[in-house]
């Protein structure tokens, strides 16, 4: 680890390495984290930059109770939520989603029954061992409509509770959130069905 022999103002908190090393040491880790949640590389790059800049400004407050990486990740999580909230303000969601149809609803007839025999997947767990599966999953998540993706990511990847997500995304009722999550999951199911499970050569499922 570099010591801060020429640190900008010699004011690193004890135990914090020189900010110049943060990009080298944590850049990819932070980028991967942001990319998973935001899907767009340019946006993820901006968030990494904002995180490191914010961390530089806040470095005196590093209390040394967690590792540097955890501390940086904490800053990044806040930046991500801020970004998502900003995007939602720019494109507000109609509050009562239950009244707006989603393309996923097309799978059901007027009585709410499946109108097609959805396929089942035999031994899907084998996919988890295949390298080619992961870009497909990432792509399917990235392909979700933005509002659904945001809710899904905060729930599945950050493990936030329904209340926390509603608060972070300014969703007025947990009912709306549940509609969003159900739609996201149904769309993901269809995306994987079309792009992964139907494309697997016979015998490899």
């Amino acid at each position, binding site marked *: 680890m570099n010591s801060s022999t020429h640190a*900008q*103002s010699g004011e690193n908190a004890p135990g914090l390495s020189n*900010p*110049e090393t943060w*990009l080298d040491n944590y*850049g*990819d880790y932070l*980028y*991967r984290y942001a*990319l*998973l949640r935001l899907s767009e*590389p340019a946006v993820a*790059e901006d968030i*990494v*930059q904002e995180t*490191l*800049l914010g961390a*530089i400004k806040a470095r005196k407050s590093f209390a040394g109770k967690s590792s540097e990486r955890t501390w940086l990740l904490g800053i990044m999580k806040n930046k991500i939520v801020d970004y998502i909230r900003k995007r939602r303000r720019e494109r507000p969601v109609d509050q009562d989603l239950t009244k707006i149809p989603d393309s996923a*609803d097309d799978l*059901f007839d007027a*009585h*709410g*029954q*499946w109108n097609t*025999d*959805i*396929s*089942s*997947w035999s031994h*899907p*767990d084998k*996919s*988890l061992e295949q*390298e080619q*599966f*992961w*870009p497909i*999953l*990432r792509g399917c*998540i990235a392909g979700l409509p933005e509002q659904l993706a945001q809710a899904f990511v905060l*729930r*599945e*990847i*950050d493990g936030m509770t*329904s209340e926390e997500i509603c608060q972070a995304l300014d969703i007025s009722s947990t009912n709306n959130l*549940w*509609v969003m*999550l*159900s739609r996201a*999951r*149904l769309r*993901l*199911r269809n995306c*994987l069905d079309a792009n992964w499970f139907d494309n697997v050569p016979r015998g490899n499922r």
Partner: protein
Amino acid sequence: MLSCKETTELLSRAQDERLSFTERMGVRIHLLMCHLCRGYEKQLRFIRKATESLAQGSSHDDEAATSLSPEARERVKDALRQNQG
């Protein structure tokens, strides 16, 4: 009797909340009679498992696509330099 659509919504919600007794029973009965929804339930579980692996970084996928490109790295480096000191 729950419809398939209602069942899929409850199956989804069950991943996040504890359903009421009535809801759980309704789902259970529907699943007994509907193989398509039984299949969907398994698929939901798989999606959760796969996404969890992704989140934990235990997926072994394309490093190049999920790393900062050299150009991006330079851009961030420049921005940091401009803001320091």
